[in-house]
């Protein structure tokens, strides 16, 4: 009967209870929706890193990542690709030649990373081909094709079908160059990546620099899932003389992003709950003050202090949980809707792009976060109940009954 009593007591002042429940609902809704929003942003960034920039795993010659030296080659890169593709959980692998050098148009020039790709394998590993906004992806038919970004095209003041000059150092350390025709213009969510990278056919770059056919600087690998630890370990064992690194190791800040954001969002939710606790404590103290006479009567007729304490605790927990669960349901519903529809922050598109984020966010939340939030709401309710329940315990029945 005490739980029923407590629940009914909540609704004696409907307006007051509704206000507090609405506050808790709003707080929890904001907390989990923002968490889902941030998760969506982070997931989008991670996905972009994997699908466009780095893939899941990369293999290099030892020291290449530190020095970027042209001579630090994987001499049998084609064999490495073949062996990698036979490894479980690998979807595809692609060889790349990587040279940091110059590109120039008639108007101007700039430093870029020139990536020589194997178009047929590259299309299986990255989503570059889907980022082409005009023209086409590199194929085997064109002579010296190059794909550059919209941003770089603007900087060089070139457009589709224009030629640009790529200047590189060959295997004999002689400066050489070649004219490449722009066959495609791409645009990703990361404007820094766009400005810094151009893509040519690997065989064209090999011919220009004098590299052997099977040589390359990098093997990029796409996996079935984003968990890379097991495959990284397997490939490290398979190629002990090469450097095998996952995207988390290649971009540690991206790896930390996930765990850091989770922690920040939990702290955010806890801060919201602490703020709400004060409101709940204030409300319940008002409730106790209004019901001093009734509480005195209850103690007089035989309701012991433990039951009075339990009743006040339950009222407070019910108040918190009603708001918390409503907030979770509303938040989950909103997240589910926007997970499909997306949130288009087009007015901040440029800013997001500068940071490497898409302006189209698909919020996402896991059940673990929802459950932990529900538990935190209950803890907050219990915590909020302690002081008001303690005040009720200290009442003297005979004095309380005399209170009007």
């Amino acid at each position, binding site marked *: *009967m005490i739980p029923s*009593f407590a629940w*009914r*007591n909540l*609704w*004696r002042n409907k307006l007051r209870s509704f206000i507090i429940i609405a506050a808790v609902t709003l707080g929890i809704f904001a907390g989990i929706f923002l968490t889902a929003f941030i998760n969506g942003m982070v997931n989008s960034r991670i996905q972009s890193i994997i699908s466009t920039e780095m893939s899941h795993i990369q293999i290099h010659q030892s020291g290449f990542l530190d020095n970027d030296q042209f001579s630090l080659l994987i001499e049998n890169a084609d064999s490495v690709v073949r062996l990698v593709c036979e490894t479980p959980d690998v979807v595809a692998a692609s060889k790349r030649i990587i040279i940091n050098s110059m590109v120039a148009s008639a108007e101007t020039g700039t430093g870029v990373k020139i990536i020589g790709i194997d178009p047929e394998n590259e299309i299986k590993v990255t989503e570059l081909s889907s980022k082409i906004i005009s023209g086409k992806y590199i194929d085997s038919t064109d002579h010296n094709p190059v794909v550059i970004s919209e941003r770089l095209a603007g900087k060089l003041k070139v457009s589709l079908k224009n030629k640009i000059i790529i200047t590189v150092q060959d295997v004999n350390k002689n400066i050489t160059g070649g004219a490449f025709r722009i066959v495609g213009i791409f645009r990703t969510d990361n404007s820094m990546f766009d400005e810094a990278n151009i893509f040519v056919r690997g065989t064209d770059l090999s011919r220009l620099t004098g590299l052997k056919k099977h040589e390359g600087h990098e093997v990029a690998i796409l996996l079935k899932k984003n968990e890379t630890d097991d495959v990284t370990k397997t490939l490290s064992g398979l190629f002990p003389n090469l450097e095998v690194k996952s995207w988390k190791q290649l971009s540690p800040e991206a790896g930390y992003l996930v765990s850091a954001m989770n922690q920040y969002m939990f702290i955010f939710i806890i801060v919201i709950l602490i703020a709400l606790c004060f409101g709940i404590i204030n409300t319940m103290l008002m409730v106790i003050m209004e019901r001093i*006479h*009734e509480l005195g*009567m*209850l*103690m*007089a*007729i*035989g*309701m*012991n*202090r433990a*039951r009075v304490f339990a009743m006040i605790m339950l009222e407070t927990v019910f108040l918190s949980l009603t708001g918390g669960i409503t907030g979770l349901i509303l938040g989950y519903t909103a997240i589910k809707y926007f997970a499909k529809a997306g949130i288009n922050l087009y007015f901040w598109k440029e800013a997001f792009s500068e940071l490497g984020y898409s302006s189209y966010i698909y919020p996402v939340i896991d059940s673990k976060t929802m459950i932990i939030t529900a538990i935190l709401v209950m803890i907050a309710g219990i915590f909020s109940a302690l002081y008001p329940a303690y005040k009720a315990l200290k009442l003297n*029945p*005979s004095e309380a*009954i005399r209170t009007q």
Partner: protein
Amino acid sequence: MSIIEIKDLTKVYDAKSLPVHAVNGVNLTIETGEFTAIVGPSGSGKTTLLNIVGGLDDPTSGDVIIDGIKINELSSRQKTDFRMRNIGFVFQAYNLIPVFTSRENVEFIMHLQGKPKDERESRTNELLEAVGLGDRMNSRPNKLSGGQQQRVAVARALASKPKFILADEPTANLDSKSTENLLEIMEKLNKEENITFIFSTHDQRVVNKAKRVITLQDGAIISDIRN
């Protein structure tokens, strides 16, 4: 047989600054089946005496012995338990739980006592019928008149089968007709069930019904008349 023995009972407020003897050396015995009114002017100590007898307050000195137990020596928790099982209360302001129906208000004590559902239901029905509210079992207090609420309060007080009922100004907020109805019910319960009633009252109608009238003044008994 005496159910309540009060020996040299004293209650002093503000003992250090300006002491007020709310109860001043009261000696009193109440027998089973009494219908006793305690009267006196405001401030004479009636409510204080009832509160001490009901275990709601502690005396400064003296003893209150109920059924052989010195209740003033019990702990707070023991007193609460004792009240629940042995004493019924009827207050001036009815003090029904507003979120409960009449039935639930009467059942509440039996819930606290841990009585099984069947017993609670049958006793509740019996009591509400006895006070003439068999047709208002599912009404909440805000749907009942003052007199009806007080009758529910009487039924609630009887629910735990108490040794006696303490009624502090039970008719103060009632009109004449309701007062008459209430007193008839209480008198009937006293005569037929031998339930002991102890009233604190200013109401002459209660005094007229009482078998014993104890007059208090300045915390002391100045007269004790049996009718």
